[in-house]
Structure formats: structure tokens, C-alpha cells
């Protein structure tokens, strides 16, 4: 789950990271009030769950109240890469002498939290990684001991070229970021940039955090961090139904059991010249209710012209799955054709059951995909 900059900053502040004051506004009036409260100059920053908001004009430096009103007005409601800006953060604009990058993510290879830091802050770290990989220092953190003082300080001294005062601040920020990362069950946490003012005071002036959905059971506050406005209705419905769903741009609605098979099905649709409308993993059961939920979610997309079931019946027998699909489709009023491919234990019996319905049965995954594409055109 991605959260907004202002939310990430709240979490950072809770763990003791130096975050400048700031608050969000949903109207230009509120923005002006906040600017007056903090004193000018301020930054007006679009709160939107995507990168590149700066380039899109979503971050503005304002020296007057008129500026704030104008920019807040322009940014609120702005579309940035398909995301509509609903909130702006107002925060005092600091004098910046230096910018650093400090980030943390889960590293699959070391199976640890990986600290990454660079003196090239304020730009996209992926770009730095490409252009100047040696400028990024990395350290996989032993979870048994956490980020030790000397580990953080050694990295920080490299970043500041030996400036001990700045290095101590950066090292502390790294340790607090690690604490926030682990306690909040993050999968990504970034300060970009961590800046020093001309007076040598360090601040985390931008913040990014992705949280691990799997850890929601121990974070009751996750739910209120979720920005429902940022979520597509079908995705929300899928999440609430416990289904894994991603909307795409095509017209072949896919219902598959298993994430790997679901991706392979999408890939096969494309292989045969079609366009998948979604990724959807309905899991392992033959539960008609789950199938109904899945169908409803897919059918919220008016572009869907055909529905393709691709189910591998393993432990659950195919005839049971077929009965589940039949029961589900019969209980609904579906106007698009449905292709069903069931493979695995008792697949013959399953196909037999399908012949008595309007559902189009297919023997193989390839045949099913090809039939579905035919039905679209």
C-alpha cells in the first residue's frame, strides 16, 4: 500500500526524524491559511500516489499568499499520470545548502532491509543508479542488531566527505528511518531529499513510504492511511472481497486461479493478439460466492467483451469447480460470452457439465484464449 508524502512524514516524525512542519489542504483557502500560519515562503505540494509530480507542475515554491492561492487552485484537481490531486501539502520552504538521498527497501537477495544512501539527493534514485551507480552506498542490515552506530556513521561520513557534524545527523536519520521501516512494516521508505540548511540543520523534506499489506493485522492505523479516492472502484471492491485484481486496458476479462497462471493467461491473450482487461486471481476454491464477486468486479468495466475462466483443478476437482462456476453465472445476468477452460482432476466430467450450459468449454489454455479472442472480434 502506497501512502502520501504527508502521511509518510507523520510516521517519520513519530520515529524522531526531523521533518519540517506541514499540513494538508483540500482547498485553496485552506492552503492560504496554512501558508499564513507557517509564514512565507512555502511549498505547495500535490499529494498523489505517483512519481514525477514535480515535472507535472505539482510542486510549487510560493513567496506570496497570492502565489499560494493560485498554485493550490491549479494543483488541486490536476491530473498527474492518471491520478487526480485531492490534497496539497503546505510546508515552509527551507533554504537548502545540500541534498542527500536516504532510502530503505526489502532486499530479496540478502533477505534483509537494505539501506541505500547517496550524496546525489533530490533526483530519482533509479536515474542515479543508472548514471552513476558508485554514488549509491548500500548496506544490508542484520535484523538481529539493527543499524549499528558505526555502520550508519561510516556510511554518512562517506556521503558528507568527512564532515562529522552533518554525518552524525545523517547517521541518526538513517537509524530512525530503519526503526520506522521495521516498526511500520514498510516495504519501501525514502527520504529524498534529506537536506541541510546553510546553518547545517538537517531535514527530511520529502518522504515516501510503501507499507506491507500483509502486516495490516497488526497496524490498525493502516486502514485510515489508505486513500480510497486514489483507488479505482473495482480494485477497492476486489480488495474488500479478498481477491487479487489489477485493471488493465483490454477487453478480455480473465478469471484465473493462481497468480502465476493468471499472468501466464494474460500473456497468452497478448500472444494471440488479444488484450487482457485485467489480472484476477480467484484463488483455489470452487466457492460460487467468490466467483460471483469476481464476475461483478470484472463486469464493472464496460470494455470487457468476453470472460475467460482459466482454472487448474488440482485438489479441488474440476467438476466441483464447474458446478461452482455454473451456479455463479446462473445467479447473474451476464450479457457477454463466457469461455471456460478447466484442466486437472476430473476435467472430462467438468466439460460434460458445461455442455448443458451457455458457457463455452475449451480443452486447453491456448484453445480457450483463442476462442475468447474470436468472440471479441
Amino acid at each position: 500500500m502506497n501512502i502520501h508524502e504527508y502521511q509518510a512524514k507523520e510516521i517519520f516524525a513519530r520515529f524522531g526524524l526531523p521533518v519540517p512542519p506541514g499540513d494538508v489542504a483540500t482547498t485553496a483557502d485552506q492552503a492560504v491559511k496554512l501558508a499564513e500560519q507557517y509564514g512565507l515562503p512555502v511549498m505547495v505540494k500535490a499529494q498523489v500516489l505517483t512519481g514525477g509530480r514535480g515535472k507535472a507542475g505539482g510542486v510549487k515554491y510560493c513567496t506570496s499568499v497570492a502565489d499560494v492561492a493560485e498554485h493550490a487552485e491549479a494543483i488541486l484537481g490536476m491530473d498527474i499520470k492518471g491520478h487526480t490531486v485531492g490534497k496539497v501539502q503546505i510546508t515552509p520552504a527551507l533554504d537548502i545548502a545540500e541534498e542527500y538521498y536516504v532510502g530503505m527497501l526489502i532486499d530479496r537477495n540478502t533477505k534483509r532491509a537494505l539501506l541505500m544512501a547517496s550524496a546525489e539527493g533530490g533526483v530519482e534514485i533509479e536515474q542515479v543508479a543508472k548514471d552513476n551507480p558508485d554514488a549509491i552506498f548500500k548496506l544490508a542490515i542484520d535484523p538481529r542488531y539493527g543499524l549499528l552506530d558505526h555502520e550508519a556513521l561510516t556510511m554518512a561520513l562517506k556521503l558528507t566527505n568527512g564532515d562529522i557534524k552533518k554525518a552524525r545527523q545523517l547517521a541518526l536519520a538513517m537509524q530512525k528511518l530503519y526503526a520506522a521501516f521495521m516498526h511500520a512494516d514498510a516495504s519501501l521508505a525514502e527520504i529524498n531529499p534529506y537536506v541541510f540548511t546553510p546553518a547545517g540543520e538537517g531535514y527530511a523534506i520529502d518522504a515516501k513510504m510503501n507499507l506491507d499489506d500483509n502486516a495490516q493485522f497488526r497496524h490498525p492505523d493502516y486502514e485510515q492511511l489508505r486513500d480510497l479516492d486514489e483507488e479505482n472502484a473495482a480494485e477497492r471492491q476486489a480488495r474488500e472481497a479478498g481477491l487479487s485484481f489489477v485493471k488493465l486496458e483490454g477487453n478480455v476479462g480473465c478469471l484465473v486461479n493462481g497468480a502465476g497462471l493468471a499472468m501466464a493467461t494474460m500473456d497468452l491473450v497478448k500472444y494471440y493478439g488479444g488484450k487482457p482487461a485485467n489480472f484476477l486471481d480467484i484463488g483455489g476454491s470452487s466457492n460460487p460466492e467468490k466467483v460471483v464477486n469476481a464476475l461483478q468486479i470484472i463486469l464493472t468495466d464496460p470494455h470487457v467483451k468476453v470472460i475467460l475462466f482459466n482454472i487448474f483443478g488440482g485438489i479441488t476437482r474440476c467438476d466441483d469447480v464447474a458446478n461452482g462456476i455454473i451456479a455463479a453465472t446462473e445467479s447473474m445476468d451476464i450479457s457477454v460470452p463466457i469461455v471456460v477452460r478447466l484442466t486437472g482432476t476430473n476435467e472430462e466430467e467438468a466439460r460434460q457439465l458445461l455442455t448443458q450450459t451457455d458457457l463455452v468449454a475449451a480443452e486447453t489454455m491456448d484453445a480457450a484464449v483463442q476462442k475468447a479472442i474470436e468472440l471479441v472480434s
Partner: protein
Amino acid sequence: MAIFVDKNTKVAVQGITGRDGSFHAQQMLEYSDTVVAGVTPGRGGQTFADKVPIFDSMAEAVGQTGANTTVIFVPPFGAAGAIYEAADAGVKLIVCITEGVPTVDMVKVMPYLAERGVRLIGPNCPGLIAPGLCKLGIMPASIVAEGNVGLVSRSGTLTYEVVWQLPSAGLGQSACLGIGGDPVIGTTFLDSIKAFAADPQTEALVMIGEIGGDAEERAAEYIQEHVDIPVVAFIAGQTAPPGKRMGHAGAIVSGGSGTAAEKVKALAAAGIPVAERPKDIVPRLQEIWQR
């Protein structure tokens, strides 16, 4: 001989009285007689399926039955705890089926396992099946057959899809392993491939990868340098949009890396044929496999 298991494998099932645990313990029992114990705290003294004793703790299960392996069906909030318990009790192979385990829990448990020399498969995986020997997890036994192809995959049903096609080519499996689709997992592609390469029964390998991370690239590099048996790969997720998690917590293209295209390129560069469609996997294998 398969990998990670042998005829001395004695299995405990943690969470044996839960819905999934009891269902799959029954399936495992039906496949072979390797299940020797169940564990559910508070249910010690009871019996599962009229023959498997249930214990309050793994320590008791290991102490009284000699279990050396465990399959975990404990809910996410208790899954890491079950792994610690199993490792502490002295088992050497842990298969964690549980889906939805927080990644930080897995990060923390890893050194505990390393210190004790314990192998973990999963979490969020279908487990391991060694046809004719034993079944650890939820893979459908009905579709497998003993043979000489090793299969390793990040996903479940996609693997079954491939397994399903092997009999038509007269092939069976030495072992079929689902390593799981989470970002932090115990046994990786690399670990599995090393084990398969060392297994005399395994004469060919199928690796089924997907988007996210670079485990496939690392495996490719290893295979090119160290593996002599034929290997065919498949990568799912060519059409996956960046930044979106495709079901598995680990199946996500982020920061422009972990794409299917990159993986296919790395595999091809290492001389490993990559099937375009699942149904091409077996033919590609037959092309390069001089039996």
C-alpha cells in the same frame, strides 16, 4: 532420491486442526505415511485422522515422534512464530504454506534459521512433492508421476499446468517444488537448482519464473556456469504493468527492474531456452534433452 526429502523424512503438520491444515494433512496422509505428528497448542493428547498424535508444541512432537520436517498451515499472524518453534525444536526442513506473512517477520526469522542450519521452503508456497516418496504441502498428488524432470516455480497452478503436460511426453518428475511468490523466501531458485543439479534422479530441469526481483537472473548465471543438465525456463508476467502487485507480494515490477523482458534476456544470454507459451515448455525441453 528427489531433493530435500528422502525415505527418512518424518513430517509434523503445524496447525493440523485448522481448516486448511486438516484438509491438507489428510491429503498428505493419503499420499504417503510420512506424517507422524500434528501440532496445535491446547489440543495436545488428541489424535488426527485416528492415527496421527497431536501435540501442544513442536518440541513435544519432535521429542516423541522423531519428526524432522514440518509443514506449516498456521494463520499469518502466527506463521513466523511457528517457524521459530519448528527450528528451535530441531527440525531441519520447514515448509510454510501460509499466505500473507508480513515480510518483516520473514526478514527477522532468516538468521534464526541460518544459525540452526534449517532449510525453509516458502512462505506462501505450494510446497514440495517428490512423486512416490512424499508430499509436503498442497500440490495435487493426482497429477504428478515419478520421473526425471525437476520442476521449480514461484507459482502453484502454473506449475501444475506444466506438470500436467509431462505425461503426454512420457515424462515424470523427480520433484516438483513451489518456492513461493513472496519477496523474502527461504529456498530460492538458486538453492533449488543447486539441489536438483546434485540429485542423480534429476536429468532435466524446468524453471518457472515471474516478474519481480532478479532471482531468475541469478539462477541463469549459476546454471550457465555450473549446471550440465538441460534446463528450460518460462517467465510469467510479460503483460504486467509496472508498479502493480500481481497477486504474489513479490510479483511486481518496481523502479523499472524485475521485468519479464529482462529475465528472458538474461536467461537467453545464459543459453537457457525460454518457452513463449506454457505449452512450449515440454517441446523445448525435448529439443535440447539428449536422453
